[in-house]
């Protein structure tokens, strides 16, 4: 009935909560000619928004998700579509009580009012719950129920009132045309629309829509079962949609909430039931809606038993019937995080998918800001759709991880917990040797990396390394890591770093191109190894990486495995259109072996005829050396604070390099060391920062202590903000804190508190929390890193860290980047 336009500034596909929020915020940010289309009718087009449980639990261990949820709750409130009812996560087991304490820490860290309460207090708030099966409750007063359909209507109304929006329901997208890798046109059954921007906010259908443009949105629809039981007199008597707190019965992985006269029971406990986007029935063919599939009662029976245990008093009544039961569809991703941002395959094609109701409006704002300003206020690091390696975007991988991840929805997930499905996708050439050495493999971006080697077990006794006293601290951890660390500091270690993402950059425009992307001066002599932050337009961290100048017009970029795909997308997106720069992902072509420790030079000298003395091969330089007949690009640098090299060679030479190093190292007591040393113990002793932990879009180099001595003249992304930050005082400083007087080791994410237990935030409202934590074997303590506001970022200041319900004293040992271990870097420069 609405005239259909033939041009639009942006086409948003999908009118669920996410699409509505995107158009609302685009309009707010000044976009005009926004077209919102949906295949279904309004206000409920038939997607997951229409059948969701609509409750908002604000606390998540992830800060990013918590921020998105908090922003969403604010928006729902402002739209008048939020009802606060409170919520209680209840524990039936001791392990869950511990997890609730952990959630309590996250609540404190992110500034959300919450409290641990007794079973009696739970029963006081929810009188029809049987407290005898409950050990403890985690009470969050701000838990709420929202009306996403109404919120979506209001958002559309506002965008329409602003003169920015055209809505076309019952409009099916048939194609997305691209030209030169850019979006050009959306084809629909109501006509074609010329446009440069498309946002896919199609929930479970998103993969299908992305595929129309030859792109991938790696999610799978999956079933979440829920039933409504009623009428229940106590609930009906309230006369309200929700008058009692929502219960999350965490151990059986389910929830119960009032829904008018009914109790709605939902489950994440049943077997993973995945579905293909192509197999979702049409609106007309679906009995209820396309995303409300037929209930499969057998899968839900155990949940009914569990619900009776907790709510038998109101559920076990003859007139309380199962009035509604569905297999509702939701979107699952390989790592459980949303899929936001521009798709790496097509410019102008954006994803806003795999989003829960509780994050919808926040995601709308985030994506709109990202599209408008180049960077959103909330750091989308963990949600960036560009984060996946190619194999992680395949159907098989997505389904394997989604199936495994489904039951983790309410699970107790250790921060170091490893996936068990679809492992072994990427193996370095050293893999057979590592396997033979009893490596414990941890995965990153599909790469199997030794975390520690069981062959080093004897070193534990030799160095007298103590095991961790507490099971949670010791989970996915081994004292062998500390032993490997000490062995490296004493002699020499070899570390598999083949998971590095590496890009070859060359061409006449290569220098200018890298100058534009990197903070550090790239115009350095050939053979220089240059560490550089990479910033977003707002001056926050986008990445940090190493650049090697191989020739006047040829560079090698070396970055971390976990951020490799994001970095590749960023670098590709900034390539000049004139073809003056070629960028090639050489990750798979190159393997890397780290060789570090006081004896590293002795080992390298034995396997190469090239001069590796400090004079001939100084720190921060790179040279090609020959190990026998193998050409090896050696980079003299270190992330562990020791003398040594990264040895890069062609993948097919890898095994020979490993064997040469191992053989030559044997007389020097070389040990293979795992990523536990590289990524945690040695790194923390040296105060090195890690992207995604200390380094994020909220903080720039100045606060992270990574500002470079000189500001280069060339312009680069984020320069204005960076320049400004250099001129002022930092609002927060990254500090290293010692955790003395306890054997407990936090895991990351815990709040740092004042000595009297008050939460710490800086003047911009950013909280102080543990960004990394671990053992420092050479310092005989545990360390945590945290940003602190200036008044706390003073060495010697005593503070507290809250961990699993307890508070432990910590002392600011270092404010800034100077390492605690070997502060002058004499070992690595030796």
């Amino acid at each position, binding site marked *: 009935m609405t005239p259909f336009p033939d041009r639009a500034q942006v086409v948003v596909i999908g009118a669920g909560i996410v699409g509505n929020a995107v158009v609302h915020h685009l309009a707010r940010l000044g976009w005009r000619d926004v077209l919102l289309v949906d295949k279904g009718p309004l206000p409920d087009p038939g997607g997951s928004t229409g059948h969701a449980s609509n409750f908002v639990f604000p606390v998540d261990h992830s800060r990013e998700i918590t921020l998105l949820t908090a922003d969403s709750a604010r928006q729902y409130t402002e739209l008048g579509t939020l009802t606060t009812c409170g919520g209680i996560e209840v524990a039936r087991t001791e392990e869950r009580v511990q997890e609730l304490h952990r959630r309590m820490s996250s609540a404190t860290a992110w500034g959300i009012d919450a409290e641990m309460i007794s079973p009696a207090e739970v029963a006081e708030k929810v009188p029809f719950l049987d407290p005898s099966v409950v050990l403890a409750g985690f009470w969050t007063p701000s838990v709420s129920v929202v009306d996403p359909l109404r919120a979506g209507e209001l958002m559309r109304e506002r965008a329409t009132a602003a003169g920015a929006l055209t809505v076309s329901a019952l409009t099916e997208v048939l194609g997305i045309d691209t030209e030169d890798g850019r979006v050009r046109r959306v084809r629909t059954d109501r006509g074609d629309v010329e446009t440069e921007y498309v946002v896919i906010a199609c929930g479970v259908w998103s993969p299908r829509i992305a595929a129309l443009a030859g792109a991938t949105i790696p999610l799978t629809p999956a079933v979440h079962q829920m039933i409504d039981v009623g009428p229940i007199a106590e609930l009906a008597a309230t006369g309200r949609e929700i008058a009692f707190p929502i219960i999350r019965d965490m151990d059986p992985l389910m929830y119960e909430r009032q829904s008018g006269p009914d109790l709605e029971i939902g489950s994440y406990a049943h077997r993973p039931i995945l579905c293909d986007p192509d197999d979702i029935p049409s609106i*007309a063919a679906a009995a209820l809606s396309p995303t409300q599939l037929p209930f499969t009662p057998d899968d839900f029976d155990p949940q009914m038993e569990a619900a009776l245990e907790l709510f038998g008093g109101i559920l076990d009544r003859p007139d*309380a019937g199962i009035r509604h039961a569905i297999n509702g569809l939701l979107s699952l991703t390989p790592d459980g995080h949303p899929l936001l941002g521009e798709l790496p395959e097509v410019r102008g094609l954006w994803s806003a998918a795999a989003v829960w109701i509780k994050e919808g409006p926040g995601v709308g704002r985030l994506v709109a800001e990202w599209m408008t300003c180049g960077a959103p206020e909330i750091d989308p690091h963990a949600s960036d759709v560009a984060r996946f390696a190619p194999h992680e975007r395949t159907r098989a991988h997505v389904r394997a991880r989604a199936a495994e991840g489904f039951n983790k929805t309410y699970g107790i997930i250790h921060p170091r917990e490893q996936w068990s499905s679809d492992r072994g996708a990427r193996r370095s050439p050293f893999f057979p040797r590592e396997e033979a050495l009893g490596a414990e493999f941890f995965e990153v971006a599909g790469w199997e990396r030794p975390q520690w080697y069981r062959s080093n077990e004897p070193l534990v006794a030799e160095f007298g390394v103590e095991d961790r006293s507490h099971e949670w601290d010791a989970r996915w951890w081994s004292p062998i890591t500390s032993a490997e660390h000490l062995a490296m500091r004493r002699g020499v270690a070899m570390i598999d770093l083949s998971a590095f993402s590496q890009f070859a950059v060359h061409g006449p425009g290569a220098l200018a191109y890298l100058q534009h992307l990197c903070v550090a001066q790239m115009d350095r002599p050939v053979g220089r190894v240059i560490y550089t932050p990479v910033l977003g337009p707002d001056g926050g961290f986008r990445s940090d990486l190493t650049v090697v100048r191989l020739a006047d017009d040829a560079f090698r970029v070396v970055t971390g495995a976990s951020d490799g795909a994001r970095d590749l997308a960023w670098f590709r997106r900034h390539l000049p259109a004139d073809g003056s720069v070629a960028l090639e992902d050489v990750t798979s072509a190159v393997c890397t072996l780290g060789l570090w420790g006081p004896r590293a030079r002795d080992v390298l000298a034995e396997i190469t005829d090239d001069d590796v003395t400090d004079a001939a091969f100084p720190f921060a330089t790179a040279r090609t050396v020959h190990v026998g007949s193998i050409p090896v690009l050696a980079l003299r640098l270190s992330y562990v604070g020791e003398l040594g090299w990264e040895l890069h060679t062609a993948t097919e030479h890898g095994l020979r390099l490993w064997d040469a190093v191992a053989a030559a190292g044997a007389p020097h007591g070389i040990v293979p060391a795992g990523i536990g040393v590289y990524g945690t113990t040695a790194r923390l002793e040296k105060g090195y920062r890690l992207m995604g932990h200390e380094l994020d879009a909220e903080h720039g180099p100045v606060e992270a202590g990574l500002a470079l001595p000189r500001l280069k003249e060339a312009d680069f992304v984020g320069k204005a903000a960076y320049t400004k930050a250099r001129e002022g005082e930092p609002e927060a400083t990254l500090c290293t804190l010692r955790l003395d007087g306890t054997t407990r080791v936090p895991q990351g994410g815990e709040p740092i508190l004042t000595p009297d237990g008050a939460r710490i935030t800086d003047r911009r409202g950013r909280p102080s929390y543990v960004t990394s934590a671990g053992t420092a074997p050479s310092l005989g303590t545990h360390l945590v890193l945290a940003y602190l506001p200036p008044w706390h970022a003073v060495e010697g200041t005593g503070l507290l860290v809250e961990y699993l319900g307890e508070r432990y004293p910590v002392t600011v040992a270092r404010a800034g980047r100077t390492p605690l271990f070997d502060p002058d870097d004499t070992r690595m420069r030796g």
Partner: protein
Amino acid sequence: MDVLVCIKRVPAVGAEIALTADATAVDTRHLGFTIGPHEECAVEEAVRLADRTGGRAGVLTVGPPETEEQLRYALSMGADHAIRVEAPVADPEPEVTTAAITGALRELPPYDLVLFGEASADAGHAQVGFRVACALRRPIVGGVKGIDVGEEHVTLRREAGGGVEVHEAPLPAVAAVLEGLNLPRYPTIKGRLRAKKAPVRVLAGPAATSGLRTLRLRHRPEARAETVLLGHGAGAAPAVVDVLAELGVVR
């Protein structure tokens, strides 16, 4: 009084029904299954009658093992025993269904009342109840929307001829009932858990055939014109009343 309800597994369809590639059946890949609303009322009535009279409420279906899902649904509504007569498909022709039910009723302990839904929600043949009654020489009333039982008789109400007819039949009797007979209850959680574990008695089905054989299914051509917009807000009232007058619902 012992009551048996004959129920049928039917797909729970949406507004549009997809067909299999050969168009001989409904494509049920994405569909759940249910019993029709008439049969839900029949089950409800049987449970109430059994409760009231201290008798038994049984449910019977004809079909392959998956049809036990519907038997269990009826059990979760309060039926106390279930019988499945083996058949290769859940949607046999009426004569085949009749033979199966008739055979089973000759084998099972006697029931005072056998209830059917007026017609199945899928095929809608609307005849099995009468066929069974005929074969068993029992009285039957169709279109029933009210049941009262006495010692020897059952009183059955139906809407007909612009009013209500009250029929009386000697027991044992058969009735085909309509939605509106009662408000069927929803299954309870306890009922569902009990039903899950309840045994289902399985009887062999007879070898029967029918001269009515489906060749193909097709969609009825639907002609729906564009919506006529009568106006906006209160100003549309005269146009609305014009339409109402045209329809003859107002003067």
